[in-house]
Protein backbone atom coordinates (compact mmCIF):
# COMPACT_ATOMS: atom_id res chain seq x y z
CA UNK A 1 0.00 0.00 0.00
CA UNK A 2 1.22 3.53 -0.73
CA UNK A 3 2.53 5.87 1.98
CA UNK A 4 -0.69 7.28 3.37
CA UNK A 5 0.93 9.92 5.55
CA UNK A 6 1.96 12.32 2.81
CA UNK A 7 -1.34 12.26 0.94
CA UNK A 8 -3.23 15.51 0.61
CA UNK A 9 -6.96 15.71 1.26
CA UNK A 10 -7.79 15.63 -2.46
CA UNK A 11 -5.41 12.70 -3.04
CA UNK A 12 -7.14 10.84 -0.23
CA UNK A 13 -10.57 11.45 -1.77
CA UNK A 14 -9.32 10.11 -5.10
CA UNK A 15 -7.63 7.14 -3.40
CA UNK A 16 -10.83 6.20 -1.60
CA UNK A 17 -12.88 6.53 -4.79
CA UNK A 18 -10.39 4.35 -6.69
CA UNK A 19 -10.52 1.80 -3.81
CA UNK A 20 -6.74 2.06 -3.35
CA UNK A 21 -7.37 1.99 0.41
CA UNK A 22 -10.41 2.13 2.66
CA UNK A 23 -11.48 4.76 5.17
CA UNK A 24 -10.92 2.17 7.89
CA UNK A 25 -7.31 1.64 6.76
CA UNK A 26 -6.75 5.38 6.60
CA UNK A 27 -8.29 5.95 10.04
CA UNK A 28 -6.36 3.06 11.63
CA UNK A 29 -3.19 4.41 10.07
CA UNK A 30 -3.74 7.88 11.59
CA UNK A 31 -4.76 6.58 15.03
CA UNK A 32 -1.55 4.54 15.16
CA UNK A 33 0.50 7.53 14.07
CA UNK A 34 -1.20 9.78 16.64
CA UNK A 35 -0.24 7.22 19.30
CA UNK A 36 3.37 7.13 18.05
CA UNK A 37 3.56 10.92 18.14
CA UNK A 38 1.94 11.32 21.57
CA UNK A 39 4.89 13.40 22.76
CA UNK A 40 3.78 16.25 20.47
CA UNK A 41 0.67 16.59 22.69
CA UNK A 42 -1.37 17.66 19.65
CA UNK A 43 -4.57 16.02 20.87
CA UNK A 44 -6.54 16.54 24.08
CA UNK A 45 -8.93 13.65 23.44
CA UNK A 46 -9.48 10.98 20.81
CA UNK A 47 -12.83 9.97 19.37
CA UNK A 48 -13.57 6.43 20.50
CA UNK A 49 -16.07 6.03 17.66
CA UNK A 50 -13.58 6.90 14.91
CA UNK A 51 -13.29 3.35 13.55
CA UNK A 52 -17.08 2.91 13.58
CA UNK A 53 -17.46 6.16 11.62
CA UNK A 54 -14.84 4.92 9.13
CA UNK A 55 -16.67 1.62 8.61
CA UNK A 56 -19.92 3.50 7.96
CA UNK A 57 -18.15 5.62 5.37
CA UNK A 58 -16.70 2.54 3.70
CA UNK A 59 -20.22 1.12 3.40
CA UNK A 60 -21.41 4.35 1.78
CA UNK A 61 -18.46 4.40 -0.61
CA UNK A 62 -19.18 0.76 -1.56
CA UNK A 63 -22.74 1.76 -2.46
CA UNK A 64 -21.57 4.93 -4.23
CA UNK A 65 -23.59 6.96 -1.74
CA UNK A 66 -20.62 8.97 -0.56
CA UNK A 67 -20.72 12.64 0.43
CA UNK A 68 -18.06 15.13 -0.67
CA UNK A 69 -15.49 14.28 2.05
CA UNK A 70 -16.66 10.74 2.73
CA UNK A 71 -14.31 8.69 4.87
CA UNK A 72 -11.63 11.36 5.28
CA UNK A 73 -10.22 11.59 8.82
CA UNK A 74 -10.15 15.06 10.36
CA UNK A 75 -9.12 16.62 13.67
CA UNK A 76 -11.13 19.38 15.36
CA UNK A 77 -9.80 22.15 17.55
CA UNK A 78 -11.19 21.50 21.03
CA UNK A 79 -13.20 24.72 20.83
CA UNK A 80 -15.89 23.16 18.60
CA UNK A 81 -18.62 21.49 20.63
CA UNK A 82 -19.56 17.93 19.72
CA UNK A 83 -22.69 16.48 21.28
CA UNK A 84 -22.04 14.09 24.16
CA UNK A 85 -18.28 14.55 23.91
CA UNK A 86 -15.98 16.51 26.18
CA UNK A 87 -15.07 19.98 24.86
CA UNK A 88 -12.44 21.60 27.08
CA UNK A 89 -11.36 24.72 25.18
CA UNK A 90 -7.93 23.99 26.68
CA UNK A 91 -9.17 24.98 30.14
CA UNK A 92 -9.47 23.44 33.58
CA UNK A 93 -12.79 25.31 33.71
CA UNK A 94 -14.22 22.93 31.09
CA UNK A 95 -12.07 19.88 31.87
CA UNK A 96 -15.17 17.71 32.34
CA UNK A 97 -17.68 19.67 30.24
CA UNK A 98 -19.79 17.41 28.04
CA UNK A 99 -21.56 19.38 25.33
CA UNK A 100 -25.31 18.85 24.95
CA UNK A 101 -25.19 19.96 21.29
CA UNK A 102 -22.85 20.10 18.31
CA UNK A 103 -21.30 23.09 16.59
CA UNK A 104 -22.42 23.86 13.05
CA UNK A 105 -18.85 23.42 11.77
CA UNK A 106 -18.70 19.90 13.21
CA UNK A 107 -22.22 19.07 11.95
CA UNK A 108 -21.39 20.22 8.43
CA UNK A 109 -18.15 18.25 8.28
CA UNK A 110 -19.84 15.22 9.77
CA UNK A 111 -22.59 15.47 7.13
CA UNK A 112 -19.86 15.74 4.48
CA UNK A 113 -18.70 12.29 5.59
CA UNK A 114 -15.54 13.10 7.55
CA UNK A 115 -14.32 10.75 10.27
CA UNK A 116 -13.54 12.59 13.50
CA UNK A 117 -10.17 11.47 14.91
CA UNK A 118 -10.35 13.65 18.00
CA UNK A 119 -10.02 17.10 19.54
CA UNK A 120 -6.79 19.06 19.26
CA UNK A 121 -4.92 20.97 21.92
CA UNK A 122 -5.09 24.77 22.02
CA UNK A 123 -4.24 27.79 24.13
CA UNK A 124 -6.77 28.18 26.93
CA UNK A 125 -9.96 29.74 25.51
CA UNK A 126 -7.88 30.48 22.37
CA UNK A 127 -5.85 33.11 24.24
CA UNK A 128 -2.21 32.72 23.33
CA UNK A 129 0.25 32.60 20.44
CA UNK A 130 2.35 29.60 21.44
CA UNK A 131 -0.04 26.95 22.78
CA UNK A 132 1.73 27.29 26.13
CA UNK A 133 -1.37 28.51 27.99
CA UNK A 134 -3.24 25.20 27.56
CA UNK A 135 -4.28 23.50 30.80
CA UNK A 136 -3.34 20.25 29.05
CA UNK A 137 0.29 21.23 28.48
CA UNK A 138 2.23 22.76 25.62
CA UNK A 139 2.13 21.34 22.11
CA UNK A 140 5.48 20.76 20.42
CA UNK A 141 6.33 21.86 16.91
CA UNK A 142 6.93 18.69 14.85
CA UNK A 143 9.64 20.46 12.85
CA UNK A 144 11.68 21.15 16.00
CA UNK A 145 10.19 19.75 19.24
CA UNK A 146 12.05 22.33 21.34
CA UNK A 147 9.94 25.01 19.73
CA UNK A 148 6.29 26.06 19.88
CA UNK A 149 3.78 25.31 17.11
CA UNK A 150 2.25 28.77 17.48
CA UNK A 151 -1.24 29.39 18.81
CA UNK A 152 -3.90 29.37 19.68
CA UNK A 153 -4.78 26.51 17.25
CA UNK A 154 -1.38 24.90 17.88
CA UNK A 155 -2.65 21.34 18.19
CA UNK A 156 -4.41 21.39 14.81
CA UNK A 157 -1.37 22.94 13.09
CA UNK A 158 1.01 20.48 14.70
CA UNK A 159 -1.25 17.53 13.79
CA UNK A 160 -1.43 18.47 10.10
CA UNK A 161 2.31 19.22 9.92
CA UNK A 162 3.16 15.89 11.60
CA UNK A 163 0.84 14.03 9.17
CA UNK A 164 -1.53 12.97 11.94
CA UNK A 165 -4.37 14.06 9.62
CA UNK A 166 -4.52 15.77 6.24
CA UNK A 167 -6.67 18.67 7.41
CA UNK A 168 -8.09 20.13 10.61
CA UNK A 169 -10.37 22.87 11.89
CA UNK A 170 -9.17 25.93 13.78
CA UNK A 171 -10.33 29.35 14.88
CA UNK A 172 -8.70 32.72 14.37
CA UNK A 173 -9.43 35.76 16.57
CA UNK A 174 -6.16 37.64 16.02
CA UNK A 175 -4.05 35.16 14.04
CA UNK A 176 -4.73 31.83 15.73
CA UNK A 177 -4.91 29.93 12.42
CA UNK A 178 -2.38 31.85 10.33
CA UNK A 179 0.49 32.18 12.82
CA UNK A 180 0.56 28.45 13.73
CA UNK A 181 0.17 27.56 10.03
CA UNK A 182 3.27 29.68 9.33
CA UNK A 183 5.24 28.17 12.25
CA UNK A 184 4.41 24.61 11.18
CA UNK A 185 4.88 25.12 7.43
CA UNK A 186 1.29 24.48 6.34
CA UNK A 187 -1.63 26.39 4.78
CA UNK A 188 -4.22 28.09 7.00
CA UNK A 189 -7.27 30.18 6.05
CA UNK A 190 -9.31 32.56 8.18
CA UNK A 191 -12.37 33.38 6.08
CA UNK A 192 -14.40 36.60 6.04
CA UNK A 193 -16.04 37.31 9.41
CA UNK A 194 -19.48 35.69 9.18
CA UNK A 195 -18.59 33.24 6.40
CA UNK A 196 -18.49 30.33 8.87
CA UNK A 197 -21.09 29.92 11.61
CA UNK A 198 -19.90 30.46 15.17
CA UNK A 199 -22.72 28.31 16.58
CA UNK A 200 -21.20 25.86 19.06
CA UNK A 201 -17.76 27.40 18.73
CA UNK A 202 -16.83 28.51 22.25
CA UNK A 203 -16.71 32.31 22.27
CA UNK A 204 -13.61 34.38 23.02
CA UNK A 205 -14.16 37.75 21.28
CA UNK A 206 -17.38 37.56 19.30
CA UNK A 207 -16.75 40.38 16.82
CA UNK A 208 -13.38 38.87 15.86
CA UNK A 209 -13.70 35.06 16.21
CA UNK A 210 -13.92 33.10 12.97
CA UNK A 211 -13.62 29.39 12.22
CA UNK A 212 -11.34 28.16 9.47
CA UNK A 213 -9.13 25.41 8.11
CA UNK A 214 -5.58 24.01 8.24
CA UNK A 215 -4.47 21.93 5.26
CA UNK A 216 -1.42 20.89 3.26
CA UNK A 217 -2.09 23.23 0.35
CA UNK A 218 -4.46 25.87 -0.99
CA UNK A 219 -6.62 23.48 -3.04
CA UNK A 220 -7.26 21.23 -0.03
CA UNK A 221 -8.07 24.27 2.11
CA UNK A 222 -10.47 25.55 -0.57
CA UNK A 223 -12.37 22.27 -0.71
CA UNK A 224 -12.50 22.01 3.08
CA UNK A 225 -13.69 25.60 3.52
CA UNK A 226 -16.56 25.20 1.08
CA UNK A 227 -17.74 22.36 3.31
CA UNK A 228 -18.00 24.53 6.44
CA UNK A 229 -19.00 27.92 5.01
CA UNK A 230 -22.53 29.22 4.65
CA UNK A 231 -25.41 30.96 6.35
CA UNK A 232 -26.65 29.46 9.59
CA UNK A 233 -29.86 30.72 11.15
CA UNK A 234 -28.43 29.81 14.56
CA UNK A 235 -25.77 32.53 14.13
CA UNK A 236 -27.30 35.91 13.34
CA UNK A 237 -23.84 37.24 12.40
CA UNK A 238 -23.33 34.62 9.71
CA UNK A 239 -23.54 36.02 6.19
CA UNK A 240 -26.56 35.12 4.10
CA UNK A 241 -24.76 34.82 0.75
CA UNK A 242 -24.30 31.84 -1.52
CA UNK A 243 -20.98 30.02 -1.06
CA UNK A 244 -19.23 29.51 -4.40
CA UNK A 245 -17.08 26.46 -5.16
CA UNK A 246 -13.82 27.71 -3.68
CA UNK A 247 -12.03 24.78 -5.32
CA UNK A 248 -13.21 25.85 -8.80
CA UNK A 249 -12.24 29.43 -8.01
CA UNK A 250 -8.83 28.28 -6.77
CA UNK A 251 -8.19 26.46 -10.05
CA UNK A 252 -9.70 29.12 -12.34
CA UNK A 253 -7.41 30.45 -15.05
CA UNK A 254 -9.51 33.59 -15.55
CA UNK A 255 -8.64 35.44 -12.36
CA UNK A 256 -6.33 38.41 -12.59
CA UNK A 257 -4.54 39.62 -9.51
CA UNK A 258 -3.20 42.96 -8.42
CA UNK A 259 -1.37 42.38 -5.17
CA UNK A 260 -0.98 45.38 -2.87
CA UNK A 261 2.30 45.84 -1.03
CA UNK A 262 2.05 48.06 2.06
CA UNK A 263 5.51 49.53 1.58
CA UNK A 264 5.83 51.15 5.02
CA UNK A 265 5.02 47.93 6.83
CA UNK A 266 7.38 45.87 4.69
CA UNK A 267 10.24 48.36 5.06
CA UNK A 268 9.76 48.24 8.84
CA UNK A 269 10.27 44.45 9.09
CA UNK A 270 13.06 44.12 11.62
CA UNK A 271 14.44 40.71 10.65
CA UNK A 272 16.25 40.97 7.30
CA UNK A 273 15.72 37.29 6.60
CA UNK A 274 11.96 37.72 6.94
CA UNK A 275 12.10 40.80 4.70
CA UNK A 276 14.18 38.99 2.08
CA UNK A 277 11.78 36.09 2.14
CA UNK A 278 8.91 38.49 1.49
CA UNK A 279 10.61 39.93 -1.60
CA UNK A 280 11.62 36.48 -2.84
CA UNK A 281 8.01 35.37 -2.51
CA UNK A 282 6.92 38.44 -4.41
CA UNK A 283 9.25 37.47 -7.28
CA UNK A 284 7.64 34.02 -7.45
CA UNK A 285 4.24 35.69 -7.79
CA UNK A 286 5.45 38.16 -10.41
CA UNK A 287 6.80 35.28 -12.51
CA UNK A 288 3.35 33.72 -12.52
CA UNK A 289 1.93 36.90 -14.06
CA UNK A 290 0.58 38.59 -10.96
CA UNK A 291 0.65 42.40 -10.98
CA UNK A 292 1.96 44.29 -7.97
CA UNK A 293 1.14 47.74 -6.65
CA UNK A 294 2.43 49.70 -3.69
CA UNK A 295 -0.26 50.82 -1.28
CA UNK A 296 -0.58 52.86 1.87
CA UNK A 297 -2.41 51.27 4.78
CA UNK A 298 -2.93 54.19 7.14
CA UNK A 299 -3.22 53.61 10.90
CA UNK A 300 -2.56 49.90 10.60
CA UNK A 301 0.23 50.30 13.18
CA UNK A 302 -2.47 50.83 15.82
CA UNK A 303 -3.95 47.36 15.26
CA UNK A 304 -2.16 45.78 18.22
CA UNK A 305 -3.28 48.30 20.87
CA UNK A 306 -6.81 48.37 19.42
CA UNK A 307 -7.00 44.58 19.50
CA UNK A 308 -5.78 44.42 23.11
CA UNK A 309 -8.69 46.59 24.19
CA UNK A 310 -11.45 45.06 22.06
CA UNK A 311 -10.54 41.36 22.43
CA UNK A 312 -10.14 41.47 26.24
CA UNK A 313 -13.30 43.60 26.58
CA UNK A 314 -15.35 41.05 24.63
CA UNK A 315 -13.64 38.18 26.42
CA UNK A 316 -14.46 39.62 29.84
CA UNK A 317 -18.14 39.68 28.85
CA UNK A 318 -18.16 36.26 27.15
CA UNK A 319 -16.35 34.47 29.95
CA UNK A 320 -18.65 35.84 32.63
CA UNK A 321 -20.86 32.80 31.88
CA UNK A 322 -18.40 30.54 33.73
CA UNK A 323 -19.78 31.03 37.20
CA UNK A 324 -19.49 27.59 38.79
CA UNK A 325 -23.28 27.28 38.82
CA UNK A 326 -24.58 26.09 35.44
CA UNK A 327 -21.63 24.07 34.16
CA UNK A 328 -17.85 23.98 34.37
CA UNK A 329 -15.53 24.01 37.35
CA UNK A 330 -16.93 24.66 40.83
CA UNK A 331 -14.75 25.20 43.90
CA UNK A 332 -15.01 22.94 46.95
CA UNK A 333 -17.12 24.04 49.94
CA UNK A 334 -18.02 27.61 48.98
CA UNK A 335 -18.97 29.62 52.05
CA UNK A 336 -21.34 31.95 50.19
CA UNK A 337 -22.31 32.85 46.62
CA UNK A 338 -19.56 35.46 46.24
CA UNK A 339 -16.98 32.94 47.41
CA UNK A 340 -18.40 30.39 44.95
CA UNK A 341 -18.01 32.77 42.00
CA UNK A 342 -14.62 34.18 42.94
CA UNK A 343 -12.91 30.92 43.83
CA UNK A 344 -14.45 28.84 41.02
CA UNK A 345 -13.20 31.39 38.49
CA UNK A 346 -9.81 31.85 40.18
CA UNK A 347 -9.26 28.07 40.18
CA UNK A 348 -10.81 27.31 36.78
CA UNK A 349 -9.05 29.95 34.66
CA UNK A 350 -5.31 30.03 33.91
CA UNK A 351 -3.10 33.11 34.33
CA UNK A 352 -3.35 34.43 30.75
CA UNK A 353 -7.14 34.17 30.67
CA UNK A 354 -7.43 35.96 34.02
CA UNK A 355 -5.10 38.70 32.82
CA UNK A 356 -7.26 39.33 29.77
CA UNK A 357 -10.50 39.29 31.75
CA UNK A 358 -8.99 41.84 34.14
CA UNK A 359 -7.77 44.09 31.31
CA UNK A 360 -11.14 43.86 29.58
CA UNK A 361 -13.00 44.60 32.81
CA UNK A 362 -10.76 47.60 33.42
CA UNK A 363 -11.30 49.00 29.90
CA UNK A 364 -15.07 48.63 30.25
CA UNK A 365 -15.31 49.98 33.79
CA UNK A 366 -16.85 53.33 34.71
CA UNK A 367 -14.49 56.20 34.01
CA UNK A 368 -12.32 54.28 31.51
CA UNK A 369 -14.91 53.09 28.95
CA UNK A 370 -14.60 56.07 26.59
CA UNK A 371 -10.83 56.43 26.88
CA UNK A 372 -10.17 52.78 26.04
CA UNK A 373 -13.12 50.93 24.56
CA UNK A 374 -14.75 53.67 22.48
CA UNK A 375 -11.35 55.01 21.42
CA UNK A 376 -10.36 51.51 20.21
CA UNK A 377 -13.63 51.14 18.32
CA UNK A 378 -13.04 54.46 16.55
CA UNK A 379 -9.56 53.43 15.43
CA UNK A 380 -10.98 50.08 14.37
CA UNK A 381 -13.26 52.00 12.02
CA UNK A 382 -10.27 53.90 10.59
CA UNK A 383 -8.38 50.66 10.02
CA UNK A 384 -11.35 49.16 8.20
CA UNK A 385 -11.60 52.28 6.01
CA UNK A 386 -7.89 51.97 5.12
CA UNK A 387 -8.53 48.48 3.83
CA UNK A 388 -11.65 49.55 1.93
CA UNK A 389 -9.63 52.29 0.23
CA UNK A 390 -6.81 49.87 -0.60
CA UNK A 391 -9.19 47.39 -2.19
CA UNK A 392 -10.29 50.08 -4.65
CA UNK A 393 -6.89 49.62 -6.28
CA UNK A 394 -5.80 46.06 -5.54
CA UNK A 395 -7.40 42.61 -5.34
CA UNK A 396 -5.40 41.41 -2.35
CA UNK A 397 -2.72 42.57 0.07
CA UNK A 398 0.47 40.72 0.85
CA UNK A 399 2.34 40.77 4.18
CA UNK A 400 4.47 38.35 6.15
CA UNK A 401 2.34 36.17 8.43
CA UNK A 402 4.70 36.64 11.33
CA UNK A 403 7.77 38.76 12.14
CA UNK A 404 9.80 35.67 13.08
CA UNK A 405 10.02 31.88 12.88
CA UNK A 406 8.88 29.62 15.71
CA UNK A 407 10.57 30.35 19.04
CA UNK A 408 11.71 28.04 21.84
CA UNK A 409 9.28 26.86 24.51
CA UNK A 410 9.18 29.15 27.57
CA UNK A 411 11.38 31.72 25.84
CA UNK A 412 8.85 34.60 25.85
CA UNK A 413 7.77 35.70 29.34
CA UNK A 414 6.72 39.29 28.67
CA UNK A 415 3.01 39.46 27.69
CA UNK A 416 3.43 42.34 25.23
CA UNK A 417 6.28 40.55 23.47
CA UNK A 418 3.99 37.53 23.07
CA UNK A 419 1.14 39.73 21.80
CA UNK A 420 3.47 41.16 19.14
CA UNK A 421 3.45 37.71 17.51
CA UNK A 422 0.15 38.71 15.91
CA UNK A 423 1.18 42.12 14.66
CA UNK A 424 0.60 41.22 10.97
CA UNK A 425 -2.42 38.98 11.47
CA UNK A 426 -4.62 41.14 13.72
CA UNK A 427 -5.56 43.80 11.10
CA UNK A 428 -7.62 41.28 9.06
CA UNK A 429 -9.60 40.31 12.17
CA UNK A 430 -10.32 43.93 13.10
CA UNK A 431 -11.65 44.62 9.60
CA UNK A 432 -13.36 41.21 9.27
CA UNK A 433 -11.46 40.38 6.07
CA UNK A 434 -10.45 36.92 4.83
CA UNK A 435 -6.75 36.05 5.02
CA UNK A 436 -4.60 33.03 4.25
CA UNK A 437 -1.09 32.00 5.28
CA UNK A 438 0.98 29.73 3.06
CA UNK A 439 4.54 28.42 3.48
CA UNK A 440 7.13 30.63 1.76
CA UNK A 441 10.52 29.22 2.71
CA UNK A 442 12.67 28.49 5.72
CA UNK A 443 15.29 30.02 7.98
CA UNK A 444 17.57 27.20 9.19
CA UNK A 445 14.91 24.51 8.69
CA UNK A 446 12.20 26.60 10.38
CA UNK A 447 9.26 27.57 8.16
CA UNK A 448 8.13 31.07 7.29
CA UNK A 449 4.75 32.07 5.95
CA UNK A 450 3.39 34.80 3.75
CA UNK A 451 -0.09 36.12 4.15
CA UNK A 452 -2.63 37.31 1.59
CA UNK A 453 -5.52 39.43 2.82
CA UNK A 454 -8.55 39.59 0.51
CA UNK A 455 -11.60 41.77 0.11
CA UNK A 456 -14.85 40.74 1.80
CA UNK A 457 -16.11 37.32 0.63
CA UNK A 458 -13.17 36.95 -1.77
CA UNK A 459 -11.79 33.74 -0.28
CA UNK A 460 -11.83 32.21 -3.80
CA UNK A 461 -9.46 34.91 -4.94
CA UNK A 462 -7.06 34.14 -2.07
CA UNK A 463 -7.11 30.42 -2.87
CA UNK A 464 -6.45 31.19 -6.55
CA UNK A 465 -3.50 33.43 -5.72
CA UNK A 466 -2.12 30.92 -3.19
CA UNK A 467 -2.51 28.09 -5.69
CA UNK A 468 -0.61 30.14 -8.29
CA UNK A 469 2.20 30.57 -5.74
CA UNK A 470 2.17 26.87 -4.88
CA UNK A 471 2.24 25.85 -8.54
CA UNK A 472 5.43 27.88 -8.88
CA UNK A 473 7.10 26.81 -5.63
CA UNK A 474 7.51 23.69 -3.54
CA UNK A 475 7.62 25.03 0.02
CA UNK A 476 4.25 23.42 0.81
CA UNK A 477 5.65 19.96 0.03
CA UNK A 478 8.91 20.28 1.94
Amino acid at each position, binding site marked *: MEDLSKLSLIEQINGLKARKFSSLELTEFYLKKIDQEKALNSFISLNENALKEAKKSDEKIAKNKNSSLEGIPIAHKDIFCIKDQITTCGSKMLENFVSPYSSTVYEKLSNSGTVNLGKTNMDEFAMGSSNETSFFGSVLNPIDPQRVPGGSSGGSASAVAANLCSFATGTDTGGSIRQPAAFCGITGIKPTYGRVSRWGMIAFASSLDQGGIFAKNALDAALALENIAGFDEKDSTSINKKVPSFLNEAKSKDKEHIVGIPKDIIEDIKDDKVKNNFYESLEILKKSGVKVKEIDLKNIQYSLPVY*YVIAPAECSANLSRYDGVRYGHRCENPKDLEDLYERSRAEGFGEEVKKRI*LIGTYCLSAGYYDAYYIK*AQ*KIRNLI*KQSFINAFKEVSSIMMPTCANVSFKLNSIQ*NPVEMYEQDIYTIPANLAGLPAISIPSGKIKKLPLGIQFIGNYLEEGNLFNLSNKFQQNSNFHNE
Partner: protein
Amino acid sequence: MKISEKILDNISSLSKIRIDEEIKSDLVKDLESILEMVEEMNKIDTSGIEPMSHPLEEADNLRKDIATKEIKRDEYQKYAPQTDDGFYLTPKVVE
Protein backbone atom coordinates in the same frame (compact mmCIF):
# COMPACT_ATOMS: atom_id res chain seq x y z
CA MET B 1 -1.39 54.07 33.54
CA LYS B 2 -0.57 52.94 37.05
CA ILE B 3 -2.73 50.18 38.51
CA SER B 4 -3.13 50.91 42.21
CA GLU B 5 -4.14 48.26 44.71
CA LYS B 6 -7.54 49.94 44.89
CA ILE B 7 -8.04 49.62 41.12
CA LEU B 8 -6.87 46.00 41.13
CA ASP B 9 -9.27 45.15 43.93
CA ASN B 10 -12.09 46.86 42.07
CA ILE B 11 -11.55 44.98 38.77
CA SER B 12 -11.00 41.73 40.67
CA SER B 13 -14.34 42.26 42.37
CA LEU B 14 -16.12 43.32 39.14
CA SER B 15 -14.82 40.29 37.27
CA LYS B 16 -15.45 37.94 40.21
CA ILE B 17 -11.93 36.54 40.16
CA ARG B 18 -10.10 36.26 43.48
CA ILE B 19 -6.47 37.30 43.24
CA ASP B 20 -3.94 35.83 45.66
CA GLU B 21 -1.77 38.36 47.52
CA GLU B 22 1.49 36.75 46.42
CA ILE B 23 0.83 37.18 42.69
CA LYS B 24 -0.48 40.75 42.91
CA SER B 25 2.79 42.58 42.25
CA ASP B 26 3.70 40.47 39.17
CA LEU B 27 0.16 40.77 37.87
CA VAL B 28 0.16 44.55 38.27
CA LYS B 29 3.45 44.74 36.36
CA ASP B 30 1.97 42.73 33.46
CA LEU B 31 -1.28 44.71 33.40
CA GLU B 32 0.63 48.00 33.40
CA SER B 33 2.85 46.90 30.52
CA ILE B 34 -0.24 45.90 28.50
CA LEU B 35 -1.93 49.23 29.22
CA GLU B 36 1.22 51.11 28.30
CA MET B 37 1.16 49.40 24.88
CA VAL B 38 -2.58 50.08 24.56
CA GLU B 39 -2.08 53.78 25.27
CA GLU B 40 -0.29 54.11 21.93
CA MET B 41 -3.86 54.75 20.77
CA ASN B 42 -3.71 58.25 22.22
CA LYS B 43 -1.33 59.31 19.46
CA ILE B 44 -4.15 59.40 16.95
CA ASP B 45 -6.89 61.99 16.71
CA THR B 46 -10.25 60.27 16.44
CA SER B 47 -12.56 63.26 16.79
CA GLY B 48 -15.57 62.94 14.51
CA ILE B 49 -14.98 59.21 13.88
CA GLU B 50 -17.82 56.80 14.59
CA PRO B 51 -16.98 53.87 16.87
CA MET B 52 -17.28 50.51 15.11
CA SER B 53 -18.51 47.63 17.20
CA HIS B 54 -18.80 45.03 14.51
CA PRO B 55 -17.08 44.23 11.18
CA LEU B 56 -20.34 43.69 9.33
CA GLU B 57 -22.42 46.72 8.39
CA GLU B 58 -25.66 44.97 9.19
CA ALA B 59 -26.32 41.90 11.25
CA ASP B 60 -29.99 41.60 10.40
CA ASN B 61 -30.21 37.86 10.05
CA LEU B 62 -32.35 37.46 13.11
CA ARG B 63 -34.70 34.51 13.03
CA LYS B 64 -38.45 34.97 13.37
CA ASP B 65 -39.63 35.55 16.90
CA ILE B 66 -41.29 32.16 17.22
CA ALA B 67 -40.77 29.74 20.08
CA THR B 68 -38.71 26.76 18.98
CA LYS B 69 -39.68 24.53 21.91
CA GLU B 70 -36.06 23.53 22.31
CA ILE B 71 -36.19 23.57 26.07
CA LYS B 72 -34.16 20.64 27.29
CA ARG B 73 -33.78 21.59 30.93
CA ASP B 74 -33.07 18.13 32.27
CA GLU B 75 -30.51 17.40 29.59
CA TYR B 76 -28.68 20.68 30.20
CA GLN B 77 -28.80 20.34 33.96
CA LYS B 78 -27.05 16.98 33.77
CA TYR B 79 -23.81 18.95 33.44
CA ALA B 80 -24.40 21.35 36.33
CA PRO B 81 -22.31 20.93 39.49
CA GLN B 82 -25.40 20.80 41.73
CA THR B 83 -29.13 20.79 40.96
CA ASP B 84 -32.31 19.90 42.74
CA ASP B 85 -35.71 19.32 41.15
CA GLY B 86 -34.97 21.53 38.13
CA PHE B 87 -33.20 24.24 40.12
CA TYR B 88 -29.51 25.10 40.14
CA LEU B 89 -28.17 24.97 43.68
CA THR B 90 -25.89 27.63 45.14
CA PRO B 91 -24.94 28.48 48.72
CA LYS B 92 -27.66 30.33 50.60
CA VAL B 93 -28.12 33.89 49.27
CA VAL B 94 -30.73 35.19 51.74
CA GLU B 95 -30.51 34.36 55.45
